[in-house]
């Protein structure tokens, strides 16, 4: 379903893709031949089936600027982006959930702000700006981290790769921990109002256990959704970070291909990221159903 | 059935029929199963009479009410209002007819738009009447007074009122359109005892004044006794027993009706009540539960106005 859309969304776009590719001053016959070679002169339905057929063979077309198949280009770039996403998610979960819980614990007191404000700031501050400042501070001035670049695992091993990604991962993690903290706070506060916690309190369960075990298990489902969502957006948000840290990842590829008007690659990355997005959504759904049997019941 | 009706009309000269419900069915389909919410339900309501549907939650009484209002469509069967089939009306015709049947909901906190003043809420109902009065505000004041609220309340919002007062406003809204039938869906079950009495009396008073009919839906036999002329006892989507109030209360025949009576806590034999229930009723309930699923379509007539569904 979504794949169909990713096709049509691009084709609904105003503007002739060939014109965009070749520039406005390209001669008419070149446009025509290009159109033909890309199969764009055929009816949309046929174009779509051809495109879909290729898609099933993991063929997104050939990159115009680099001359390589788009799919292999994308595959080459997956590794650092994924690693970065995982690292960022880990950090954001480790920072976000405690922040959220602490602000629930201090809810209604002024100390609550100590935990909600950092979360808010993390959502509000643009990551590209923090990234630049951090590089200057932590990498250039005190050499704690490498300034930029990435060492592929296959050649240099995991630890080297991770070391490269630590600072960008930290920035991504901080960027998304706010959302996780916010969701943890909102959903746990909601749960804390529920009657069944009253039953637990009346049964003598201590307040700490109620918050950390009972309430958290209830709000876990909605937190997982946000984690899944932020992992997926991190893959996307990596666009900026990769640009700044000069990491040869998917985001970097996207930007270069957009700037070069490399049409098949744009489409390819878009679909690739979308498919991953969908897979992550499915995984979070499954996880949620596992955590909260009531959701499973409702889905069925 | 037809014979029964004719005999009925011969023995008692009854006011004309207002609502006829003939064998209506409604099922809800969920992914796993089909639930028969209402199953072959038939009953009539005469002009000026109060017909009560009694039963526990999930027995289909509310669904029946909603089908009469066409908030839900019937699967099978027919609902005739003044001889006209309701399901045959087009949307536009229906909208014009809407004001003749009104509803009072159970939850007085959820049935008034929180963003509207009382005056707007009432005016909205008044203008949907067939012939509109010249002074809507004066009419709204009159309506408020007839449900026992002062006109100073017109400019307030619903959240400023207590449950009982809100229910009065709902009633004012319902009678504002000069309806012929009002469906009262558990109108007092969310209210305190003393307020219940106030609202029930108000409903009776208004019926005398305006002459409309009530379809009174409730799970509470004691409330029903006070309000109704005739009673249909619903269980598992079917009417298992129907009769006049006295027939049902003095001579309940169906085992489910009897169970309902036995479950009603009273003040007189209070001590014995709960004690009696632990042994007896789990068994009775199981029996009734089994029966409920296996009712035949055959009616056993006790008197011309009193019948029950036979077990299979």
């Amino acid at each position, binding site marked *: 379903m979504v794949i169909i859309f990713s096709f049509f969304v691009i084709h609904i776009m105003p503007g002739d893709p060939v014109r965009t590719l070749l520039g406005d001053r390209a001669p008419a016959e070149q446009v025509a031949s290009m159109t033909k070679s890309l199969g764009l002169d055929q009816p949309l339905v046929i174009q779509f089936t051809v495109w879909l057929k290729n898609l099933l063979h993991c063929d997104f077309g050939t990159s115009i600027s680099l001359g390589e198949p788009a799919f292999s280009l994308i595959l080459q770039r997956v590794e650092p982006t994924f690693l970065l996403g995982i690292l960022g998610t880990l950090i954001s979960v480790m920072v976000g959930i405690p922040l959220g819980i602490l602000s629930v614990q201090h809810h209604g007191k002024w100390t609550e702000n100590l935990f909600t404000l950092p979360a808010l700031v993390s959502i*509000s501050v643009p990551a590209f700006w923090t990234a630049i400042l951090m590089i200057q501070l932590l990498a250039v001035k005190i050499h704690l981290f490498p300034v930029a670049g990435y060492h592929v695992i296959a050649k240099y091993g995991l630890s080297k790769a991770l070391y490269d990604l630590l600072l960008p991962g930290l920035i991504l993690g901080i960027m998304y921990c706010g959302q996780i903290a916010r969701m943890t706070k909102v959903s746990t506060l909601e749960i804390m109002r529920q009657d069944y916690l009253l039953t637990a309190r009346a049964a003598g369960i201590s307040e700490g256990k109620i918050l950390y075990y009972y309430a958290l298990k209830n709000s876990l489902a909605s937190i997982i959704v946000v984690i899944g969502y932020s992992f997926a957006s991190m893959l996307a948000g990596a666009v900026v970070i990769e640009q700044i840290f000069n990491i040869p990842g998917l985001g970097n590829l996207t930007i270069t291909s957009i700037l070069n008007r490399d049409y098949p690659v744009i489409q390819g990355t878009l679909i690739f990221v979308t498919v991953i997005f969908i897979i992550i959504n499915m995984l979070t759904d499954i996880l949620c159903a596992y955590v909260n049997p009531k959701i499973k019941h409702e889905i069925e | 059935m037809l014979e029964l009706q004719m005999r009925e009309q011969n023995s008692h000269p009854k006011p004309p029929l207002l609502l006829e419900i003939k064998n209506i069915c409604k099922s809800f389909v969920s992914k796993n199963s089909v639930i028969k919410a209402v199953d072959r339900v038939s009953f009539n309501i005469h002009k000026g009479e109060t017909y009560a549907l009694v039963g526990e939650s999930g027995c289909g009484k509310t669904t029946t009410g909603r089908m009469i209002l066409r908030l839900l469509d019937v699967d099978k069967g027919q609902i005739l209002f003044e001889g006209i089939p309701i399901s045959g009306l087009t949307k536009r015709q229906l909208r014009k007819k809407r004001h003749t049947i009104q509803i009072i909901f159970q939850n007085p906190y*959820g049935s008034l738009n929180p963003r509207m003043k009382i005056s707007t809420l009432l005016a909205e109902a008044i203008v949907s009447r067939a012939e509109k009065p010249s002074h809507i505000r004066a009419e709204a004041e009159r309506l408020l007074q007839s449900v026992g609220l002062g006109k100073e309340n017109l400019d307030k919002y619903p959240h400023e009122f207590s449950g009982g007062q809100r229910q009065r406003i709902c009633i004012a809204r319902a009678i504002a359109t000069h309806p012929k039938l009002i469906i009262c869906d558990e109108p007092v079950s969310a209210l305190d005892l003393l307020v219940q009495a106030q609202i029930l009396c108000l409903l009776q008073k208004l019926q005398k004044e305006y002459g409309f009919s009530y379809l009174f839906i409730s799970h509470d036999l004691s409330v029903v006794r006070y309000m109704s002329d005739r009673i249909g006892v619903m269980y598992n989507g079917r009417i298992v027993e129907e009769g006049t109030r006295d027939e049902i209360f003095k001579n309940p025949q169906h085992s489910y009706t009897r169970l309902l009576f036995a479950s009603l806590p009273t003040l007189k034999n209070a001590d014995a009540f709960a004690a009696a229930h632990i042994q007896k009723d789990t068994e009775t309930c199981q029996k009734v539960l089994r029966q409920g699923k296996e009712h035949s379509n055959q009616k056993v007539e006790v008197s011309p106005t009193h019948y029950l569904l036979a077990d299979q």
Partner: protein
Amino acid sequence: MHTLLKIREKTNAYILTGIALLTIVFMFSTIGPLVSAFDPLLTAPAMRLTAPGSVHWMGTDDVGRDVFIRVIYGIKISLIIGVVVALISGITGTIAGVSAAYYPITSKVIMRIVDGIMAFPTIILAIVLAGILGAGMRNIIIALSISYFPMIARVVRNATAEVLATEYVESAEVLGKSNTYIIFRYILPNIASPLIVQITYTFAMAILNESILSFLGVGIQIPTPSLGGMVSDGRNYISTAPWIITFPGLVISWIVLSLDLLGDGLREMLDPRRRRAS
């Protein structure tokens, strides 16, 4: 009058802080051009990379333009984009959401489209859209609006479905009110709270993402001043002239933070569950 009083009673610190911070930014951007003698586009190679001082309050950039006045114009552009995106996606999202909740057939079509768009990560979608449409303010607005309207449509659809299930809507149906009447008098007033909150967040996110687009070079084109673009320009001079990127970054954070504060505060204030409790 009564509602006004009620609002004041319930207003919390977040909202007040948010509004105060926003007002400061707004004042800044209106008064700024009046008190500063510089032109945002005028280059002055002689004055390049001047540190902040009494003449250039925020210093100058690599071609000698005054950072202060460029920040002021950047704020203006950011705010305009934010407001317009919030409004466009708010309105289209509301229309889509309400009709999706109201008409079951439309619902399927609209929600498929919404799900389709939402399957793309927002930033990627905006970048790709902006890349395809070309840079410039109008295209950024279109790209961001397309990216954000599904979120609002979804919020509105859920809120509308909730309102539609209430007994007060049924009571209006029973009175024979038309769909249009019910939508305008019943649904819209009752979904206003979550809608306003979501629009506030959209406002914030639009500003943040506009700066990202401009930073990546697919947003506002040089030489027009934009906050994201200025950070991008100043990157290479960070060790010698940190002020070029410090001030625009601070200002973006300031605006987005105040909007997020406002959104959080509004959500807390308008939360129906809290209201019921009081």
